[in-house]
């Protein structure tokens, strides 16, 4: 006979199981109250083909063997709120293509496997998809996951379109086709310089560039790299850096950072934050009764910005797409905006198209264009994409720089009258930057 394990040990195991169950729930984005009204205001849009040069044969049901695109996404775990967004776009695009008669008459099929927000699982998921002989793959969400999947995908000779790879300076190869293009350089140590210059140009375009700035940045690969380039750019333009602090990912108490910012009272607060950091910083500002002169946020969750209400007015945000002309005023963009809002509302996601959803669609447009031009053959698709430009919802993309990044498409958006709008560069701006710190 054996002694039973200590009750504490069993309790430990039960607690561990409970925590894992809770993490499975991931998280959902809560809509602000006016979101339903704004969604209802989105006009109906006519069905068109999702890519330029493709005919939309509405009503012609596709037949034959499906063209299967496999992907690994974080559908559970801490990255699930964004991972599920990319899954929603994938399903939307597949339905869209099939409503248009498929690709050369063949139906498109999406096969997704949950990676549970774990990069190690991403690797085996792509091995599994390739073993299952999917025709193509779509990249996962996030820099670590993208690089974890790159190994098996590249070895197997598959094209690797990615939506939001946050580690652009880590070389994947000629099969990498990023939708969120940053860089426009051959030197990987300067991948974020163009994005920083865009921000500087935007600020200078106002005629009132900041004389002082305070940086608060999350310890996260993308935010740290971007912050480094922005500091250099602003210092070069004569801005005084009043403070520069880094905080751990997951920080929720911004009290000490808020007090430092209040003491410095800079013209510009640069928050290199992700997710809900901006919400937590504003809570800390409220607690001390401080209102920043101006603020720029690098990678905020769109719902977090929306939840700030009037306080967000004037906030500048890094972005590659907002729903405003000229990018948002094409037949493809209008149809996507309408259908995405419906799908997102159904799935409890932020119902408006911004960087993540637009990048996700652009990644699909890259792949679909490659298939349409090169056929169901990864080598041909890779060769075609490397030699040509692709029209996407975020602009025309090419794959001819370091790590297949072409021109930098990072832009500056601003919240104006409760709505996000691109304000820089001028060729994609839907409004002028309102900046006077």
């Amino acid at each position, binding site marked *: 006979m*054996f002694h039973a394990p200590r009750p504490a040990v069993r309790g430990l195991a039960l607690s561990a199981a409970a925590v894992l169950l809770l993490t499975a729930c*991931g998280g959902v984005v809560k809509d602000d109250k006016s979101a339903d009204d704004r969604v209802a205001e989105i006009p109906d849009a006519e069905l068109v083909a999702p890519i330029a040069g493709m005919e939309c044969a509405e009503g012609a049901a596709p037949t034959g063997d499906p063209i299967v695109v496999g992907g690994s996404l974080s559908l559970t775990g801490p990255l699930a709120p964004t991972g599920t967004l990319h899954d929603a776009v994938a399903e939307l695009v597949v339905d869209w293509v099939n409503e248009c008669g498929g690709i050369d008459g063949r139906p498109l099929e999406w096969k997704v496997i949950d990676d549970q927000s774990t990069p190690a699982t991403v690797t085996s998921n792509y091995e599994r998809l390739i073993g299952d002989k999917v025709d193509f793959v779509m990249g996962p969400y996030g820099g670590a996951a993208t690089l974890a999947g790159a190994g098996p995908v590249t070895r197997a000779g598959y094209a690797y379109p990615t939506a939001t790879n946050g580690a652009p300076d880590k070389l994947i190869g000629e099969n990498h086709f990023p939708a969120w293009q940053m860089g426009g350089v051959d030197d990987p140590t300067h991948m974020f310089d163009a994005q920083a210059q865009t921000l500087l140009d935007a600020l200078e375009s106002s005629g009132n560039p900041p004389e002082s700035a305070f940086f608060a940045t999350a310890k996260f690969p993308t935010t740290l790299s971007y912050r480094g380039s922005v500091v250099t750019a602003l210092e070069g333009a004569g801005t005084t850096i009043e403070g520069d602090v880094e905080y751990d990912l997951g920080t929720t108490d911004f009290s000490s950072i808020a007090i430092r910012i209040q003491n410095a009272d800079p013209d510009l607060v640069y928050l290199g934050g992700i997710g809900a950091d901006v919400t937590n910083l504003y809570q800390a500002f409220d607690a001390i009764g401080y209102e920043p002169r101006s603020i720029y946020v690098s990678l905020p969750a769109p719902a977090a910005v929306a939840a700030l209400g009037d306080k967000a007015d004037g906030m500048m945000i890094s972005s590659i797409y907002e729903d405003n002309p000229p990018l948002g005023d094409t037949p493809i963009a209008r149809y996507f905006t309408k259908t995405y809002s419906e799908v997102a509302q159904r799935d409890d996601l932020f119902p408006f198209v911004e960087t993540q959803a637009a990048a996700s669609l652009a990644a699909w447009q890259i792949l679909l264009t490659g298939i349409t031009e090169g056929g169901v053959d990864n080598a041909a698709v890779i060769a075609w994409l490397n030699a040509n430009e692709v029209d996407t919802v975020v602009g025309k993309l090419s794959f001819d720089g370091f790590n297949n990044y072409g021109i930098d498409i990072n832009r500056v958006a601003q919240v104006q009258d409760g709505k996000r709008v691109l304000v820089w560069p001028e060729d994609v701006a839907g409004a002028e930057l309102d900046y006077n710190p």
Partner: protein
Amino acid sequence: MNALRDHALWRQFVAVVGCAVVAVVVVPAFGSDFAIAFGFQFVTWIVLALSWGLFSGNTGYASFGHGVFFGIGTYAAAAVFRHSDAPFVVVLLAAGLAAGALALVVGLAVFASSRFSGDLFGLITLAMAFVVVTVVSNVAFLDGGTGVFVREHTVGSWAGSSTSHLFVIATGLAVLAAGVAIATSSTRWGSALRSIRDDEQVAESLGVPTYRYKVLTFVASAVLAGLAGAPQAIYLGYVEVGAVFSLNIPLLVIMMTILGGITRWWGPLIGAATVVVLREVLLDVGSPELSQIILGAALVVVIALLPHGLSGAIPRRRGARRVPALEGGAR
């Protein structure tokens, strides 16, 4: 008894080596990269579960820091790759030593006082994780917050050229972990550890040097987890703090061990195998949330119905050698 002359132990170890050899030959023969990648993860979890059971299972000191030792091994390997051209065996040793050194420092300090037993030990190991994450995030030599791209340093190396090579390495580590687990199953070392779990004060009064045993076993457990971190760094290709030090890792390891049971040395092995296979199978359920919930609920049910875990539910062979002092121990 001299463990080296214990034929039963040697038979078990030879069986483990035999299974490992078969796995190394058979898995690649499937001709599927997925089978190899899955096999690599499978044996890595086995190393982690066996090494957690080695200390926490045997002594009853529940550690939430096992993922830290695994992560330290991963980051130590990444640092050596990044800053040197050292061969993989050096990388492997660095990973194990880094984890062992951390465990030695923590163990020497924590086990010096009886105040830090029980729940407080668990909290300390949890706090250790936050300290280590902060250090790694701020020290540029290790990471500095931007992540480390390992793949660019391992391309062309034997270990980095194929997942099957990583599978061979991880299987070797699993054999090592199993060997250590077997060694604790019916040796004086194991008896001492289990006497700590049963009643540490009584063990102390009977002359068991509990402090020394706890420190050394904690270090051995950490070294094994750290060693497993080296091939993991190559497998991931890019390491960043959030992924490497995820709290899910120690939680899964604890669940695997409790599920498999701590009354037999191979309990954690069975637990790890069950969870890994179940997770993979449930990926096909169609609903990722549902598959996670099914996994968690299944584990809760098994733990509630089988207090000794899966291994404890299997009856021992009639006539198997029983040592009264070892009742309830990992054998």
